[in-house]
């Protein structure tokens, strides 16, 4: 390899190859930036030149300014954006954390025990098609306008995907995997921590990814109905009351950005450390 690569003819083509790879890398970055900024630029122009109603569709620069103001001491209340983002994120983190526990336990009971299957399978099949938001009025009556309502919405939205994927993951573990573990003399605890948990992990992460997507959408909607003072959903709903259209669009942008970060950056990292590193295919 090395003696071929160091020959002059090869070095030139190698350098060309490297610059091409470098360019590819840049393009991979640039492409999404262009595809998002071009429509925003057109929007800016259209709004400023009066092609579209600038009250209903304020130019993006105005939206960003409004967000900037609301993120600072002049906001109402001061630093409002941070409170809204923090409130929504806290609900997501707590709700998803609870769903992770509930979903994993229920999923394992369904996949590994006959009684768990008998009890939970029919219940889950019946409840799964119900949109999470349909529960919100019930939760409002039970908990009132409270964090518990929004957190429970997140919990419900995430649990089903996690249960479904944990069951799928355990079903995919071949009987022979357990045979190998047992012929190594594995105890039940060892089989659980060294075989079942890592075996299910890729599926759990997939369930988490899809579940968080659902949870994020459900949370924003639930905050419109059931948040008293903070949260991105509440912020949008509140802004609508006062015709602060720039804040509405600002909220939408923040939801998009945070959703992207949650689904791609946080979970992307988790997947890179597990599924991608192991080269495991998760079938769904």
């Amino acid at each position, binding site marked *: 390899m090395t003696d071929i690569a160091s020959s002059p003819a090869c070095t030139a083509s190698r350098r060309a190859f490297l610059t091409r790879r470098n360019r590819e890398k840049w393009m991979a970055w640039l492409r999404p930036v262009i595809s998002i900024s071009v429509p925003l630029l057109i929007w800016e122009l259209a709004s400023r030149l009066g092609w579209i109603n600038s009250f209903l569709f304020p130019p993006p620069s105005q939206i960003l300014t409004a967000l900037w103001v609301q993120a600072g001491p002049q906001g109402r209340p001061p630093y409002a954006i941070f409170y809204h983002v923090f409130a929504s994120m806290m609900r997501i983190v707590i709700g998803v954390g609870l769903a992770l526990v509930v979903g994993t336990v229920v999923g394992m009971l369904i996949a590994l025990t006959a009684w768990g299957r008998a009890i939970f399978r029919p219940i889950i099949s019946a409840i799964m098609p119900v949109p999470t938001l349909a529960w919100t009025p019930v939760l409002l009556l039970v908990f009132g306008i409270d964090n518990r309502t929004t957190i429970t919405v997140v919990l419900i939205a995430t649990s089903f995907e996690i249960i479904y994927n944990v069951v799928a993951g355990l079903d995919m573990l071949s009987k*022979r995997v357990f045979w190998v573990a047992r*012929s190594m003399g594995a105890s039940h605890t060892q089989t659980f921590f060294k075989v079942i948990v890592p075996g299910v992990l890729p599926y759990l992460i997939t369930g988490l990814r899809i579940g968080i997507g659902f949870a994020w959408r459900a949370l924003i909607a639930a905050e419109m109905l059931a948040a008293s003072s903070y949260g991105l959903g509440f912020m949008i709903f509140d802004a609508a009351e006062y015709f602060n259209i720039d804040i509405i669009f600002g909220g939408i942008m923040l939801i998009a950005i945070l959703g992207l970060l949650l689904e791609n950056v946080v979970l992307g990292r988790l997947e890179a450390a597990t599924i991608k590193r192991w080269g495991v295919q998760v079938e769904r």
Partner: protein
Amino acid sequence: MSAEPAFKPRLAAIPDPGEPKIVAEGINKTFINRENGEEVVAIENLDLTIRDQEFVAIIGPSGCGKSTFLYMLAGFEDISAGTLSMDGHPVTGPGPDRGIVFQEFILFPWRTVLRNITLGLEMQKVPRAEAEAAARKWIGLTGLTGFEDAYPATLSGGMKQRVAIARALAYNPEVVLLDEPFGALDVQTKFYMIRDLQTLWQEAHKTIVMVTHSVSEAVIMADRVVVFSARPARIIYDERIDIARPRDALDPKVIDRQREVTEVLSAEVDKQMRREAGRNPLGN
């Protein structure tokens, strides 16, 4: 094939049979066919004694119950009647005194090659350094050096099977059970694996039971070849292969033996086919 083997040809004599290691007496295995509720007799009144450090290959028509017999030795399957003992103690379940290698490898994708091989020792709470030293020995002997930190998904079938073999040997079982170990490999890979691993089996000093459907595999590798009849399984051929190792596939003595076993086996397959054709109402 005329190329010199990589290792020094050591013409090792076939060891004299040792003390009985595994004794099967009057083994019966019946299944209930789930579809029609009929009782299927897989194995009927089977007697077989496998001696200490003997390499026995079991061969037979497909579906004859040879794998079932191997799973009974491993403790994965119960016996319906008869006695099955190892060192005078009845086999009641899987244990680390018997290592298993499956056709489908069954590696743990979340563990590197090294960690797959140390797992059996981890299960037995062997200190990490000690487990790694043992694993590295088998990594060397199975030709996996340089692949210690690779994940199974990045390996070819042949390499995966080397990992499975090293893993089964690493926790030092007394008996190694091979369930069609080369069945999932292409002809080339299989040829090199069988050649490369010839010395491994001798140096391991284990009692080895291999189930296979390849006559050449059986004759080249084993000290003794046992042929099972079509279902219900009985022993219709049981001979020692007294040919010095390493064995060459083109050695006339090897070819003679292969022909002998093939005749017994194909007569049995013919009989099975005729029986099945007779059962076929179309009678073709």
